[in-house]
């Protein structure tokens, strides 16, 4: 029995796929199932919250201009920033994450994902885009100081065609790495900047 036996964690899934059905969402679902199973093996049950960025495309553009997230986007942001782990999956457009995917992470507070375990996934028409995960997504999450698992999962069209590219193995390996990280951490606590001052005003006055 693990010490986390019986506890519940929240996994937020951010999917930036644009079509329905989308291969990005398909990969996100594979990663989600594998993560939930891996957590279960560690005695942890998981609640899954999916954020389809397509539904927030206009909200995100508005947020860029107004500086605040409107109601539906606020819920999505709170879901992701309050989760115990994040699965972030994007199609690769023009050699990088999609603009929609990047915009979502652009409107988060820069400290909102500090230390949060993240599993990255990406899809594209050809495997020649696969390193975009390493040269585009990983630096993004490094900037946000999230804790990204070593295995990032890329799925090209040929992986869905049943080719033996090892996709299932990569999904399981990545999910296991994420589950280890989640299991090793206490459940995420809500952060409320208004709950109490982080320091007294006397500290601010002293410049500490």
């Amino acid at each position: 029995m693990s010490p986390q036996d019986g506890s519940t964690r929240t996994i937020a899934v951010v999917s930036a796929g644009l079509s329905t059905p989308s291969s990005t969402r398909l990969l996100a679902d594979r990663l989600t199932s594998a993560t939930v199973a891996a957590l279960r093996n560690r005695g942890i049950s998981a609640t899954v919250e999916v954020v389809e960025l397509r539904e927030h495309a206009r909200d995100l553009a508005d947020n860029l201009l107004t500086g605040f997230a409107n109601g539906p986007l606020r819920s999505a942001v709170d879901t992701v920033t309050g989760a115990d782990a994040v699965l972030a999956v994007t199609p690769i457009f023009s050699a990088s994450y999609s603009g929609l995917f990047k915009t979502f992470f652009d409107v988060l507070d820069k400290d909102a994902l500090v230390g949060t375990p993240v599993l990255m996934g990406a899809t594209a028409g050809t495997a020649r885009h696969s390193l975009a995960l390493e040269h585009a997504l990983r630096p993004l999450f490094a900037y946000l100081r999230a804790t990204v698992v070593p295995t990032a999962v890329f799925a090209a069209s040929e992986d869905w065609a049943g080719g033996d590219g090892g996709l299932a193995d990569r999904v399981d390996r990545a999910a296991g790495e994420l589950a280890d990280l989640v299991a090793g951490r206490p459940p995420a606590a809500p952060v409320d900047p208004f709950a109490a001052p982080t320091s007294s005003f006397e500290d601010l006055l002293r410049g500490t």
Partner: protein
Amino acid sequence: MQFGIFTVSDITQDPTTGRTPTEAERIRAVLAIATKAEEVGLDVFALGEHHNPPFFSSSPTTTLAYIAAQTSSLQLSTATTLITTNDPVKIAEDYAMLQHLAGGRVDLTLGRGNTGPVYPWFGQDIRNGIELAVENYALLRRLWAEDVVDWQGKFRTPLQGFTSTPRPLDGVAPFVWHGSIRSPQIAEQAAYYGDGFFHNHIFWPPEHTQKMVEFYRKRYEHYGHGSADQAIVGLGGQFFMRKNSQDAVREFRPYFDNAPVYGHGPSLEDFSSQTPLTVGSPQQVIERTLGFRDYVGDYQRQLFLIDHAGLPLKTVLEQLDLLGEEVVPVLRREFAALKPAHVPDAPTHASRVAAAGGPKDVTVSAAADDVTGQVAEQVREEVEAR
């Protein structure tokens, strides 16, 4: 409760005509708006401070002094005074001077300013915004409270034996509000000193304003200035009114759609539901405004932004007529009927002087002048002796 208007002094193209006013025109327009505010029975006119185009108001005390001379009862305030990039010594001097000229009708609202490039123009760094606000305001208070100040801090040249003149009118410093859209530290600062807290209440959803104000009230009580519902709260807001609400929507839409801050983003309808913006009839503005009290409690000051985004002067003056004739009289009556007796009004110079036991002459005369003169003379003598 005080009602008034605030302007950010933007010089913006009128999207319906393609014409942009000149600086001279826009400056005259704002003066006309301020004097009109008094004529229609408003209490407060507040002016922003900016140091970059498309804004003209780099020198708010000059403008407010002129307005003070043209008016007799209007309370003059700022929206906001930059506590980060202004030298607190100059703020102490300028606003003490303005208070003398205006006969006690001045208060000020301090803000950090969110225009990054402005900071280095004044030798500062936006990343130090909170620290600057904290240190500079602590010094500003001392400059008004103490005749002779010795001071050393992180951001400004140290002061030795400095006296800020003129001394505060009647020995009482102007009342200070602290404005912040999203920084709990600034609400904390306002609460710590028992000063007012002003929320812009234009750009963000009401739920956010509610959190900031609740936090300020809680901390106000924590620091022993009174109960949470006695804290001094001011709100911004914006509207566009016509007798017929459809006319208001039709006329305001091009200004909204092209507004510098939120234009080309959310629709007028979305933004109206997400923020306190009200575009409609006077009755709709009355109802929406009365609703502010539901989430911030009984508050002391309500200012509206009405002259932005290229709206022509004629239109703004019509807005003021509607505000003064149809909206504010109802709001005054309704808010007053709802406010419990133990909730104070917004502090004024008169109420603060009374609370301090009456006016005091605090002129620092011969003694300090002699000291300054002697030092200068000694220096001169030393130089001449060489």
